[in-house]
């Protein structure tokens, strides 16, 4: 039992330590370690976990780790996998944080950071446009997206409220749409 938990922890520790960008970057390693070497589950199962993880709150790679850990060893397995994914981040980021804060006033670091900020802005623009292409399909999506943009730029409405309200709105609008489609399809 303890041996398998340690195996889960170390497996996901390695995952957290080598995958840049998280999420789908882990998939090839999961395929090799879990499907081919350990034969715990099929690749389809892992892909299902990814699909469901995107529909759940939280960080996708942590969610996938918890699913796999839970399947193997229930709650202790889930905890081992989750702590495994985050342990390397805690170590690496703490070190970088202290390096960065001690060199922050260095003139070269300042020039570099100022250009990096511009680069980060471009990366975010790319993310936003990719999300818009994938997730906004109709006029409802466009209006909702613009409304949220307006609310977050010009008011102090909390993002938590926005998330709850738009989830409810999506469910209601979709239910009304399918409801009226069904009614329209019925013979009079």
């Amino acid at each position, binding site marked *: 039992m303890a041996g398998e938990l340690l195996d889960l922890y170390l497996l996901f520790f390695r995952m957290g330590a080598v995958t840049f960008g998280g999420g789908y970057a882990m998939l090839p390693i999961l395929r090799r370690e879990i499907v081919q070497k350990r034969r715990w589950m099929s690749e389809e199962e892992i892909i299902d976990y990814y699909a469901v993880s995107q529909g759940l*709150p939280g960080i996708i790679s942590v969610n996938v780790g918890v699913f796999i850990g839970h399947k193997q060893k229930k709650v202790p397995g889930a905890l081992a996998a989750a702590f495994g994914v985050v342990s390397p981040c805690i170590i690496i980021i703490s070190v970088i944080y202290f390096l960065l804060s001690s060199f922050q006033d260095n003139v070269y670091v300042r020039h570099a950071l100022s250009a990096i900020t511009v*680069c980060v*802005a471009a990366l975010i623009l790319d993310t936003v446009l990719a999300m818009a292409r994938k997730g906004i399909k109709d006029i409802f999506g466009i209006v909702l997206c613009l409304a949220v943009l307006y609310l977050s730029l010009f008011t102090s409405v909390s993002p938590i409220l*926005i998330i709850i309200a738009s989830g409810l709105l999506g*469910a209601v609008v979709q239910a009304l749409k399918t409801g009226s489609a069904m009614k329209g399809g019925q013979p009079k």
Partner: protein
Amino acid sequence: MMIYLQLFWEFFKIGLFAVGGGMATLPFLQKLAVTSGWYSQALITDMIAVSESTPGPVGVNMATYVGCSVAGVPGGIIATLGVITPAIIIVNIVSAYLEKFRESTLVENVFYGLRPAVTGLIAAAGFSVVEAGVLHMDVFLQTHNFLDLIELKKLIWFILMYAVIRKYKPHPILCIAVSAVAGIILLF
């Protein structure tokens, strides 16, 4: 002691409501910067750059980085545990009902509203990064001279970076590294 509880609670909420992967934590972190006063907007862009250039999920890296800046390494650990706790609880529950969850039309309908909303939230967060990185709103408001609004060098770099990212999809680390060097040479 209080600060650790606060950190855990704030990041627990982020972990619970930030749906849609890495960048989805961004609007919440900006809101938290305003409401808590724990860190500045400038720290957020540094943090994105660090998160994108280190292994591990971006959401976890951001939690560790903010936690470290607020309350040292213990703060980093506690913020990270806070951000993954909701996911651990939820995924353990969903594991038992995986089939039902995947086929639920309700979940699909909720996402019909969530996807555009999350896009809008991240767009708004991205706008403040662009504002901090490329535009000089504060100077413009004082002088009302349009030329003071834009720093040409940064605007050109922003457009160039975006074009490169869009066309060649390089790894974010590469963009950040090139920007750092360019920033030092061109005195950004």
